[in-house]
């Protein structure tokens, strides 16, 4: 949890102090990199063959002898591959330290954990912040539009490269959960189990609307420069900061904001009768905005939100979701949170109904919390218990033995 007292009261995002680090990571990530040459293009849904391209990824734990204990973690919209290590740009701890590590539900003593930066991201996998080898310049808006299935297709190429035929589990929350579902629908034989958290099989109209708000904020910033800001040595930090602030509200809940901030003032007792950040909640949001622009590329934000907007598994199956999972053998665990209004429980329930109609083996738990969508990133013991038990049960079915710890 962010300690609000320690947050300085910034004016809207200050110019990035890590801008150079961020730009460097896009081509030369502090990660392992799988490079794919012209002979192995990534066939994108928009019709473009992307080649060459690269995938930046991190791994934790060890792959067992029969290559049966690999878990692919799919990151959310603004996440990256640094699940369980210090972030190379911000220095902050891994984004899923609560879930991944020795003795954690995703136990690195038992499983081989892989997480790759999505295609279109800005932490080392090819995206709009990467250099286009054809021109020697950054891609920017010349980068082709990508989709969730494209991200997953790229991941299958990485998993092939790692010599893994079947993943023990694909797990993710939010956009990561969407990838997990896409993996399972498109490559059912390669996914033994799926843990889909706080997600949906399609992006709702409200969620598309919020994404459009974010994109318009970025593009309204004069520093965006038609997407070629890097050639002008700027970054649309104001626009991206506002996009992040709006998005961040959707990740929380009314109750959580009330509990954390209420109407409390920030470092003052009386209103200043100005547009300064008088309220703690304002200060908190500004902090969220400014810290985000340090590590995230604005164009990448446009591409990834677009990919989520286009996501609709049923649309590829005559509009019938159950057809996407017909006869599936994969074991599912679906988790939602009561206060998540971005991906409300009803969306998970629709998925579960479709899985039931396919006679899939599915567990579905709705967890009571007031922490909103972001609950999957936080310390929610019931969520950990359920994840752990699901993986243990699946591990027994898979014949995984304890390898230590």
């Amino acid at each position, binding site marked *: 949890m962010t300690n609000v007292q320690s947050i300085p009261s910034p004016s809207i995002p200050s110019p990035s102090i890590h801008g150079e680090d961020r730009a460097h990571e896009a081509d030369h990530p502090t990660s392992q990199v799988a490079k794919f040459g012209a002979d192995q293009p990534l066939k994108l849904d928009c019709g473009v063959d992307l080649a060459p391209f690269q995938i930046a990824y991190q791994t934790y734990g060890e792959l067992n002898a029969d290559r049966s204990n690999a878990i692919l973690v799919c990151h959310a919209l603004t996440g990256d591959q640094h699940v369980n290590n210090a972030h190379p740009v911000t220095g902050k701890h891994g984004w899923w330290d609560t879930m991944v590590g020795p003795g954690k539900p995703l136990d690195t003593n038992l499983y081989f954990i892989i997480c790759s930066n999505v295609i279109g991201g800005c932490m080392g996998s090819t995206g709009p912040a990467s250099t286009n080898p054809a021109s020697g310049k950054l891609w920017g808006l010349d980068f082709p539009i990508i989709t969730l299935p494209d991200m997953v297709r790229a991941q299958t190429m990485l998993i092939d490269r790692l010599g893994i035929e079947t993943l023990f589990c694909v797990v993710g929350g939010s956009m990561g959960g969407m990838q997990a579902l896409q993996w399972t629908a498109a490559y059912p034989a390669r996914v033994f189990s799926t843990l889909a958290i706080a997600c949906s099989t399609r992006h709702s109209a409200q969620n598309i609307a919020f994404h459009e708000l974010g994109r318009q904020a970025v593009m309204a910033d004069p520093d965006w420069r038609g997407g070629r800001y890097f050639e002008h040595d700027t970054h649309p930090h104001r626009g991206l900061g506002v996009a992040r602030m709006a998005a961040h509200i959707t990740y929380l809940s009314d109750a959580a904001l009330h509990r954390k901030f209420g109407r409390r003032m920030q470092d003052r007792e009386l209103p200043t009768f100005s547009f300064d950040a008088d309220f703690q909640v304002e200060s908190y949001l500004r902090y969220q905005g400014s810290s985000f622009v340090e590590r995230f590329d604005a164009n990448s934000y446009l591409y990834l939100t677009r990919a989520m907007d286009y996501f609709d598994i049923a649309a590829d199956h005559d509009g019938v979701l159950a057809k996407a999972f017909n006869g599936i053998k994969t074991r599912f665990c679906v988790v939602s949170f009561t206060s998540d209004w971005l991906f409300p429980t009803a969306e998970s329930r629709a998925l579960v109904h479709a899985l039931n109609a396919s006679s899939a083996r599915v*567990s*579905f738990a709705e967890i009571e919390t007031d922490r909103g969508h972001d609950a999957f990133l936080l310390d929610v013991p019931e969520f950990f218990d359920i994840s752990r038990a699901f993986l243990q049960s699946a591990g027994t079915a898979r014949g995984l033995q304890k390898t230590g710890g």
Partner: protein
Amino acid sequence: MSMSSQQTLPLTGVEPHRTENLRSDHLLVAEMVQSGSKVLDVGCGDGELLQLLESRGIDGRGIELSREGVNRCVAKGLAVVQGDADTDLVNYPDDAFDYVILSQTLQATRQPKVVLENLLRIGHRAIVSFPNFGFWRMRLQLLVGGHMPRTENLPATWYDTPNIHFCTIKDFVQLCDEINVKMERAVALDLYGRPLRLNLPWWFWNMFGEQGVFLLSRGEK
């Protein structure tokens, strides 16, 4: 045949010491399910029966109304989803399971007849257990006490009970006739969870059975 000789049920795959703490109706239900089959437990509570079934190599799934119950089941690694027998069974396709179990839940559904029909649409067989409202102690409480019966197994008062459709064994048998459901096996358990003797007449079961357990299949068309 003495009562005590019927206490031990042939449960292959379950170690004797494990059966001691298990509910007798669960043991009876588990004994009715052929090993290796696929089972849906509707109203699976804490997943006790599902665990017993899985320990016998049965592919078990569950639906449970209460979120707490569901989460406890999922935390045991069971494939359980939150759902309502009255509204969510329609989502399951025909013939999806070998058995669908409705254990001590029928009386809490809004439309027992529709639920029963759904059970035998989804499953080739259904196993239904329910408290017998014709049990002599129930009758006595109403007749002598003049109040709605309450027992150890059904402790709720009339105003807070989830059980809105009580029936007697006789009522249930009539319903099965009405909707053309075939009874493959019927067992009445006494107050101590012991099966009543098979050759006793229905009226005796209806008076002395504390609960009924039925293995059902679809009748001839």
